[in-house]
């Protein structure tokens, strides 16, 4: 393999200094990064291993009722944390619907947020890809693109963000805490991932050296715990990325939806928050007709980017399903087939 520097800084300040140089990248558990390096897609000159940084592996309750999750908390540890699963069931379900048990045991929160697209041309170093090589062109446009984006894409890039975790997170107003060269700042998760526009290579709002140190969930997010679901359609029952997915969370009082949260995965370069649908749902009684309207509103701007018109229809149906399931109530336990449309089946 190509030679690169490997550094293991002792603290966050050293990490930022080490990662600010050109060619340096952070290494968490490497389940995504090392694959990319082995395929020659990513050729960093320096890996800054953050896995030993102190204090980033905790789940803390905050005084204001919110939750702070360190960037190094493992996906599995978070999903299996009983209090977390109780308060944020859709997030736990989304986490457990992703990848495989082995990968979830390794993968970190920060790495999951920052994982790269699964576009086959991005992974194929011999293909033209604007994300890898600005200005090279996009081989997916006329290629195998049945699973590509239907919202927010540009001619420059039609890739999707693959994370399941991010979908309910963005619905629940998660905030990302970042440490960088100019200190600490925070950003709504919704602002972390960028739509491609003319600069698909700029995937996130992070600047060189920026380190995600934690993820925060506001106190209000717990208010949806009784009616929160994640639904994921995929091409096999486990160990597959979403074709399309949706997180729905409702606050239902007196038979009315007081507040709704809705987001889609697998449709765009970022987890797609459905603000218009949320507004539409607020104040209505849970009802299939309203869900359908919400679904239409969510996909109103959708356009196929290739052989993927079906995703627009599918996304609408998933929205309806996720809302229906959320309204029916969060199951007492996370289903054995998390996120699966068959998860409601007893014994599944």
């Amino acid at each position, binding site marked *: *393999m*190509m*030679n690169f520097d490997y550094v293991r800084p002792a603290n966050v300040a050293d990490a930022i200094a080490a990662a600010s140089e050109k060619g340096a990248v952070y290494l968490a558990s490497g389940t995504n990064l090392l694959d990319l390096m082995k*395929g*020659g897609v990513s050729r960093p000159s320096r890996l800054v291993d953050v896995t030993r940084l102190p204090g980033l592996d905790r789940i803390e309750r905050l005084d204001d009722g919110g939750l702070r999750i360190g960037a190094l908390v493992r996906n599995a540890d978070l999903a299996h944390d009983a209090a977390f699963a109780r308060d944020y069931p859709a997030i736990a379900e989304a986490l457990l619907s992703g990848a*495989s048990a082995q990968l979830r045991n390794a993968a970190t929160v920060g790495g999951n947020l920052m994982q790269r697209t*699964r576009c*086959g*041309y991005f*992974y*194929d*170093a*011999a*293909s033209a890809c604007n994300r890898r090589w600005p200005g090279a062109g996009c*081989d997916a446009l*006329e*290629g*195998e693109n*049945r699973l590509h984006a239907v919202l927010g894409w540009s001619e420059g890039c039609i890739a999707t963000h693959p994370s399941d975790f991010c979908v309910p997170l963005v619905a629940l107003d998660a905030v990302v805490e970042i440490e960088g060269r100019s200190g600490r700042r925070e950003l709504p998760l919704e602002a972390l991932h960028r739509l491609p526009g003319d600069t698909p290579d700029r995937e996130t709002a992070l600047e060189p050296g920026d380190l995600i140190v934690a993820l925060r969930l506001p106190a209000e997010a717990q208010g949806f715990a009784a009616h929160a679901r994640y*639904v994921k*359609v*995929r*091409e*096999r*029952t*486990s*160990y*597959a990325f979403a*074709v399309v997915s949706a997180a729905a969370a409702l606050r239902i009082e007196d038979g009315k939806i007081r507040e709704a949260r809705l987001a889609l995965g697998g449709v765009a370069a970022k987890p797609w928050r459905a603000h218009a649908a949320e507004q539409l749902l607020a104040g209505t009684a849970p009802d299939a007709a309203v869900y359908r309207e919400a679904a239409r509103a969510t996909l109103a701007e959708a356009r196929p980017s290739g052989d993927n018109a*079906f995703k627009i*229809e*599918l996304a609408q*149906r*998933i929205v*309806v*399903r996720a809302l229906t399931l959320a309204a029916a109530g969060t199951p007492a336990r996370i289903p054995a*087939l998390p996120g*699966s*449309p*068959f998860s*409601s*089946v007893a014994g599944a």
Partner: protein
Amino acid sequence: MTPEINLTRDPAHLRHGSSIGQPLTRTDGVLKVTGKARYAADNHPPGMLYAVIATSCIARGRVKSLDVAAAKRHPGVVDVMTPAHKPELAEDPDAKGNPFAFRMELLQSDEVRYANQAIAVVIAETLEAATEGAALLSPRYQVEIARVGLDAGEPYAPPVVGIGNPAEVVHGEIDAGFAAASKLTDATYETPAQYHNAMEPHAIVAVWDGDKLFLDTPSQGMAIAQGRIGGLLGIPPGNIHINSPFLGGGFGSKGLVSGPQMLGIMAARLVGRPVNLVLRRSQMYGPVGHRASTRQRLRLGADDAGVLTVIDHHARITTSSFDDFYEPAADASHTLYASPAIRTAHEAVRVDTGTPLFMRAPGEATGSIALESAIDEMAFACGIDPLDFRLRNYAEVEPTTGKPFSSKALRQCYARGAERFGWARRPLAPRQMRDENGFLVGWGMGTATFPALMFQGNARAVIRADGSGVMESGAHDMGQGAWTALTQISADALGLDLGEITFRSGTSDLPDAGIAGGSAHTATVGAAIHNAGAAVIARLAELATPDERSPLFGAGNAGVVARQGRLHRRDDETRSESYAEILARAGLAEIDASGTGAADPAAQSHYAMHAHGAVFAEVKVDPELGQIRATRLVGAFAAGRIINPRLVQSQLFGGMIWGLSFALHEEAVMDHRSGRILNANLAEYHVPVNADVPPMDVITVDEHDPHVNALGIKGVGEIGITGSAGAVANAVWHATGIRVRRFPIRIEELVTGLS
């Protein structure tokens, strides 16, 4: 080192008198789960270097330049093998000596025939250095437009399909068949390219000693490999010693030695040191074979009684631009259903891929899913239950040849499978069943079939002075459990309990066991073992019966039976003598004898020989989202004598899961411009995960077949895929009313159809 497997296991397992038929667990199971089984790439001879193949990223054209200097400058790189710098070969790797000699890319030119083809090999002190050296070669190409897909070129009639089968077979009067029909169906099905993806990639550790060659490499056919390697290198096959005790799966891709394995051998010769070469997962998509893509048109005719009047099965298949392997997809229609008129025909299109090859149930798998779908469509067109329809068209003799079957318990398979499944309650029309959660439920079935083949194999039996036995045969255990089953046969052949014998296998230094393929390994090697055992027992009897001091004196050869280490007089079982006593009196340390297993041409000319089965599937489909979930699979199979029910069940489970995979998951996605495969990894090349596999039930129906071979074995390695793929596809139709004819069934077809 010759691996030895000694069976000392819980005697509670054992039924004395016969080891055949017992559900023993794998003899090598503990070695495997404890990591003690040494696979090819686990060997590290002193001084070993690592070779990494640089592969082409274009599918067609020429390599214009390679930056060999840059690769050589990389620390640790020892040498770079290129078309300009490689050991001489004695034979052109593009020469076609025999039908099993497929062309390989051994750096004979700068031509590129497919993506992922070897264009150079970097040899280094470490895997990392060799990997980086390969990247530093930065090839430049002269690119030609790649030919991709079933419409990439002019179709032509292949000379043969499979191994020597005619490309077109016509039985009866096709036009008359169509004229006699009152119902016609005409449908076209597509199956994608699939790749074997054995867990263990092709790997080789090659050590030269003068003109002797020692190889650790997985092989499903060591003697064929010796011949091929010897021919290419110009050394006698006997100089080549192959160790292949364990294979991490083969599925046909390790049946013939592949180009990459040869490159490992050449690299070792070039540098004069042992070399390890292991393919990366992505490199398995090209040079080691695959299942060709097909487009199959099936036109069926039936009369008012639901009796087929014609089966017209036409398959277009892809093959490589430079060699000839033709997936015999339409041949599936030769044997399954009776019809006065049957035509099967193939046409081929050359594309820029590696040469397709045998992949578990080659022809049968691709053909079966199309045929079973078409039968299902015709049954529905006739308004007849699919099982009833199959019974009305039951082939009493092999339809295309008129030969009687050596045995065929398919009716019992249908009956028992249907009963276990509860098939009788199936509504005829689709989209009639829902479960309590509102999911659509569908039931489908398919008939399974696979020919009962025999190759040629040898074994050597030894009885030692202490009365124990040894059986030797260079057989291949791909994980299917061959060693275990063959050990059981050996015990019975030698008249010894399992604990008294040693079975030696897995190396080319032992008698040639032929090829582990075509579901024929247990049958072939089993027959060889049976004959070797009989021969050594006969020698023992020859020592005892003429000897006045023996209680067996005067019994004559035919007058003794071997059991538990003793020969008994047939006419008086109380008179017996142990093997040890016989050898001691004769003053012999051991005696041995050889045996061969091979097809019986007379029986083959009289009888059609096939295993059969019936598979029933239940699927559930989300009525809005189109997500499919298989919920039940029941298969009933008749495959002659069952040597080890546990292993047989496991083979059938595996085959049925592959059928599920065929219907719902598996597909190589190729960019239609570049010819590169975009999902050449196990994350995106989907096979079912545990959560996709439903509860499964396997029934084996007793079948006594005196004609197939001495032991009446038919083989179970491949049949499980056939029938199952169609059963799942038919169940999806029955659940939804949507007939998807392109496999694997994709979610978009259901999403658009359901509304």
